[in-house]
């Protein structure tokens, strides 16, 4: 693997070795072998190249999680372009912004989403040329799309390893998502670390729980493909149904699970795990948010056999520290487990507010090959996200506050800004407020995060409406669904005559948090 320059070479190498093994499976029973996936992604490559797509371009993927979507991803990479996965659950207005912001050269889109997206994109300009797939997880729909126009077979492009491979959009504090740019080298260095740490084999069966626009999917897709293993795609809807999810994990004899802790909490609480044989599971990996100790203890009691790893890292670096949990959770432990030590492909340091290295609590900074190139089209944000040391090394500032415990592990202590994690997703509270301000009856809006013993946080929105009548909460929730992704919709709405202000006239969030009992 060290000799590889590009992510799609992982697929072609595995296809050469394991052509007849199943690479990707859907829960409806549809599967594709390594040989067939390599061929289908070649056909995607040929079509994209014929459309003029190549190195330096970006291609949007607006398909539900499916074999077709995986083939579209690899085909895009083989054309030398970078892929930009869109959140199929996000409102069209948000995805339209991404289509425009990222300057997509082409777009894969399911037929039933096309019109709403195209209408929303009109606000900014023109829709990019679209490859329309009827229903991405049905049989042979992508093949049917490709068959509509013949394209000559061309060579796979193997770009420089620092070429852009994908752009993942995350919540931005200004009310628009921002695109994190990641290179082939960034993902390959991470996959090499995963290989060393988790020792996958072709017999492994990985779950793909996270959506493709979420950085957890990088491990799922590329670690599986690198090792000739089998990837089971968990559809977006099934991922939220713990009882059916537990049945699928058992029936498919999954051996590696990777998700946000809140999904594991729901599995332990509602999945009726005791009814199923999950004996094939050897690794349970979680990342994206703090795993509260009570549900974690419950999960480990129900599933004692696997090894458990707490993986930590922002999208900008992917996983950068890791901690293997002890076999037993000590009965007196009430704090979450540490985030662990720095992964071997990266370096870390902790800095104080002045940017100087400190041994106290400070901001975690990361350097190394897996760090992002920057934010798409946002040079000022990019400049603020990095600092340099005397040697000129570029360090990504995570914004996460940590300290080192007696065992040498990093312990997460909080954020230095207003970003929170909700069900593993990054949520800038300012992004929610920007959405609320779009409501015609809202005069002022403040969003705060309130701790929740089971799921980490709940979002509370405090609104003022001035002399206007206050909208119904039912109507507000519907409105939010039109402008925000589901994980950003506040749990609770309250109304106030006025928001508390600090002496310089800004919203007093500390006071709001105190009023909410934090």
């Amino acid at each position, binding site marked *: 693997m060290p000799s590889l320059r590009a992510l799609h070479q992982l697929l072609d190498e595995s296809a050469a070795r394991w052509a007849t093994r199943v690479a990707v499976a859907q829960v409806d029973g549809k599967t594709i072998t390594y040989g067939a996936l390599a061929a289908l992604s070649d056909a995607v490559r040929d079509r994209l190249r014929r459309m003029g797509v190549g190195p330096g371009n970006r291609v949007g993927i607006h398909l539900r999680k499916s074999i077709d979507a995986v083939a579209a991803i690899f085909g895009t990479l083989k054309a030398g372009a970078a892929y930009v996965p869109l959140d199929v659950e996000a409102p069209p207005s948000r995805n339209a912004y991404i289509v425009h912001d990222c300057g997509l050269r082409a777009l894969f889109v399911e037929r039933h989403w096309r019109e709403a997206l195209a209408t929303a994109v009109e606000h900014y300009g023109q829709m990019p040329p679209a490859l329309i797939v009827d229903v991405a997880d049905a049989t042979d729909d992508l093949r049917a799309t490709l068959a509509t126009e013949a394209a000559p077979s061309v060579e796979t492009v193997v770009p420089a390893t620092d070429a852009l491979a994908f752009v993942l959009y995350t919540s931005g504090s200004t009310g628009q998502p921002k695109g994190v740019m990641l290179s082939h080298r960034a993902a390959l260095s991470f996959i090499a670390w995963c290989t060393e740490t988790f020792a996958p084999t072709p017999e492994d069966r990985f779950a793909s729980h996270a959506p493709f626009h979420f950085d957890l999917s990088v491990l799922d897709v590329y670690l599986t493909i690198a090792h000739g293993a089998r990837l089971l795609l968990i559809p977006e809807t099934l991922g*939220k*149904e*713990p*009882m*059916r999810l537990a049945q699928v994990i058992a029936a498919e004899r999954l051996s590696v699970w990777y998700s946000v802790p809140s999904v594991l909490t*729901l599995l332990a*609480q*509602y999945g009726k795990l005791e009814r199923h044989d999950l004996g094939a599971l050897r690794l349970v990996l979680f990342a994206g948010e703090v795993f509260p100790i009570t549900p974690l203890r419950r999960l480990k009691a129900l599933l004692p056999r696997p090894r458990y790893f707490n993986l930590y890292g922002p999208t900008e670096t992917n996983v950068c520290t890791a901690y293997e949990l002890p076999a037993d959770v000590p009965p007196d432990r009430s704090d979450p487990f540490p985030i662990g030590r720095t992964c071997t492909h990266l370096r870390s340091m902790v800095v104080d507010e002045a940017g100087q290295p400190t041994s106290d609590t400070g901001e975690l900074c990361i350097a190394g090959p897996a760090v992002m190139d920057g934010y798409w089209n946002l040079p000022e944000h990019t400049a603020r996200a990095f600092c340099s040391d005397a040697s000129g090394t570029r360090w990504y500032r995570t914004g996460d506050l940590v300290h080192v415990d007696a065992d040498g592990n990093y312990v997460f202590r909080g954020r230095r800004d207003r970003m929170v994690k909700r069900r593993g997703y990054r949520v800038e509270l300012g992004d929610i407020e920007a959405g609320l301000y779009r409501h015609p009856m809202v005069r002022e809006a403040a969003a705060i995060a309130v701790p929740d013993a089971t*799921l980490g946080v709940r979002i509370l929105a405090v609104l003022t409406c001035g002399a206007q009548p206050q909208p*119904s*909460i*039912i*109507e507000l*929730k*519907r409105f*939010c*669904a039109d402008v925000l992704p*589901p994980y950003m*919709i506040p749990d*609770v*709405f*309250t*109304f106030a005559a006025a928001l508390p202000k600090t002496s310089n006239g800004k919203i007093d969030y500390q006071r709001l948090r105190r009023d909410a009992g934090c």
Partner: protein
Amino acid sequence: MTVSTDPAAIRDAVRVYVLETFLPGEDPAALTDSTALIGGRIVDSLGLLKLVTFLEERYGIEIAAHEADADHFDTIEEITALVRSKL
């Protein structure tokens, strides 16, 4: 405590649970028997699990995953009918 299984009582119990759990502060009149709970984003995926658990424990029934979706379980009216069919 005996739980009434009269349709009106089930409807009221579901209404009170939805208002208190998912719509604190809402005018009760804004929530009707035909308000779309899942489709209207009032109840999210986690909320649905809580609602199902509440009903299973209160009425001693079991609700399968495929029964609790937006097609069959979206309004107070549909939820009441499903609970009634299992008693």
